[in-house]
């Protein structure tokens, strides 16, 4: 099972890594590579956050701290030494992870620090880390990285970022997959539901929380390290802004926190929205839509898109395909805008209460559960 999954991830990775070579053939603009790099970046961050929070239920608001440590590790080393930046990436991950483990070592021993208090504490950690880096490393000047040297086989700059972003995203998602399907994941889910009971039934909760936090922060640091190169100019205000932890949360909530694929889905969707609506004409729409979406998701779809899709795969997919066809036939313009509009439709469709599907759609289109039941009964015969 795990070997097959590994093979799957490798194949997906190789195929996608070849994607930049196909630019001439497919005729897509180079920006697609940057767009996808950002999708990979957010996927890594959201997925890494989810390894701790989605699985164990410890809601971290300070993911930006670990991402920021990664950014500053790479930025500081690249600007101050001759070390090739590829070597700084693992270090970025390790330093972020060390910080995470230090925090965890203190916090996870205190049973009262759950829920909002844990969230607040991690937020405070982010502020403290920002203040320390600001005073010790940055000094207010920021770090200008400029154009870093890198090995030729990775292609030109956007191809290199695409490939490295892809690699880190795959590593993170694969780690999330492994955790999800391992003893660690099972233990974390138990901690999520009832930590004291889990501990009483033999789950070594402290060790598991530390492992989850260590992994989570490692990948956040890794993604941050690479992102420093994309930023090319790094300053505290830009790196430690509150939008990083909030976006990560929003993505995971939207996609679904209980499954390793959830944050990936959320990251792709939110990044698409952001890109599609960055045109100033959509500015009000962008803010109101982001805010409104957040509220709507929490009120009407708290378990996230992945779970909803699983329950309503066939009706939702049918309607979504319909939208795709209409879009493709009828509307021109930027493709991410189309994509975003379509996604909005799909999300809206998914938010429609189950009752509606049961009474209206269910008569014409079979629900996934009923298909599942049919297949099962077929298999038993």
């Amino acid at each position, binding site marked *: 099972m795990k070997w097959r999954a590994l093979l799957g991830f490798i194949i997906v990775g190789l195929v996608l890594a070849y994607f930049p070579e196909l630019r001439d053939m497919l005729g897509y603009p180079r920006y697609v590579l940057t767009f996808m790099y950002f999708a990979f970046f957010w996927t890594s961050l959201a997925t890494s956050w989810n390894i701790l929070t989605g699985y164990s239920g410890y809601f971290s608001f300070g993911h930006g701290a670990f991402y920021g440590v990664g950014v500053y590790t790479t930025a500081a080393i690249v600007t101050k030494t001759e070390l090739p930046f590829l070597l700084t990436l693992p270090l970025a991950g390790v330093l972020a992870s060390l910080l995470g483990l230090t925090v965890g070592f203190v916090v996870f021993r205190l049973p009262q620090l759950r829920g909002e208090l844990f969230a607040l504490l991690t937020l405070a950690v982010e502020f403290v880390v920002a203040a320390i880096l600001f005073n010790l490393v940055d000094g207010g000047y920021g770090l200008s990285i400029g154009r870093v040297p890198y090995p030729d086989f990775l292609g030109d700059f956007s191809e290199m970022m695409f490939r490295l972003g892809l690699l880190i995203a795959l590593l993170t998602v694969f780690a999330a997959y492994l955790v999800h399907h391992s003893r660690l994941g*099972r233990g974390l*889910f138990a901690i999520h*539901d009832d930590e004291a009971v889990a501990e*009483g039934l033999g789950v*070594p909760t402290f060790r598991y929380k530390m492992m989850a936090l260590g992994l989570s922060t490692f990948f956040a640091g890794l993604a941050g390290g690479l992102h420093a190169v994309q930023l090319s100019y790094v300053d505290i205000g830009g790196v430690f802004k509150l939008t990083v932890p909030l976006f990560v949360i929003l993505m995971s909530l939207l996609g679904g926190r209980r499954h390793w694929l959830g944050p990936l889905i959320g990251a792709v969707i939110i990044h698409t929205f952001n890109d599609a609506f960055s045109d100033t004409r959509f500015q009000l729409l962008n803010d109101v839509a982001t805010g409104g979406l957040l509220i709507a998701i929490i009120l009407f779809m708290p378990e996230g898109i992945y779970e909803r899709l699983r329950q309503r795969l066939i009706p939702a997919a049918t309607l979504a395909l319909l939208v795709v066809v209409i879009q493709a036939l009828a509307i021109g313009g930027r493709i991410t805008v189309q994509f975003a509009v379509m996604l909005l439709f799909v999300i809206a469709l998914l938010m429609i209460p189950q009752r509606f599907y049961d009474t209206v759609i269910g008569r014409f289109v079979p629900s996934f559960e009923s298909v599942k039941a049919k297949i099962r009964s077929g298999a038993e015969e």
Partner: protein
Amino acid sequence: MLTCHNVIKDFGGVRALAGVTITVHEGEIVGLVGPNGSGKSTLINNITGLTVPTAGGIQFLGQEIAGNPPHRINHMGIARTYQIPRPFSTMTVRENVEISALFGMTQGISQKEAKQQAIEWLDFTGLSSYANLPVTKLNLHQRKFLELSRALATKPSLLLLDEVMAGLNPSEIDESVKMIRKVHSSGVTIVIVEHLMRVVTSLSTRMVVLDQGRVIAEGLPETVMKDPLVVGAYLGKDYA
């Protein structure tokens, strides 16, 4: 197999256990009784490591366990159930049991084996037809049995049952009694906390009575129930 030696537990200024000394021998069913607030649940919490005694020692199989984290105590062979069932609410019935099979004394088994064992334990407690349902679909009685399956799946040698029968109707109680005997006959030593005297006296091989954090009586059910101290504790001093 289990020895509590002069266990004291304070919460703030309140002394919940004022020096409890109890021994549980292998193969027994010990009935732990006492009025509300007498310290029964506190004692269980201290044995399972949920709370750490203020003073005193707890030995299990000759080893000091007080102060160990609960999961380590569980790995040594002690499991418990909760008075109000606390299932993992986002999992199915089977997954609930799988967790304890995976992490209990048998740790090191594969997830496949854990799943297999979970199904076996659900068969044992008669819940196998609910295996794939979310736990929210279970009624109280079934949840109590789920608690039991979960505790058993950790393969304990000592099982602490905290009011498994509270809130059940008479026929469910009878089923539970049968189930406990079944567990006992499979070789598990049991400490049972219970309010229903009829049940405890019929089940236990020995009884311990707590009052205000102290052991006030100990012995065979029929003798203990006649002890004036016990009667006084339950009915007030006037009846003693």
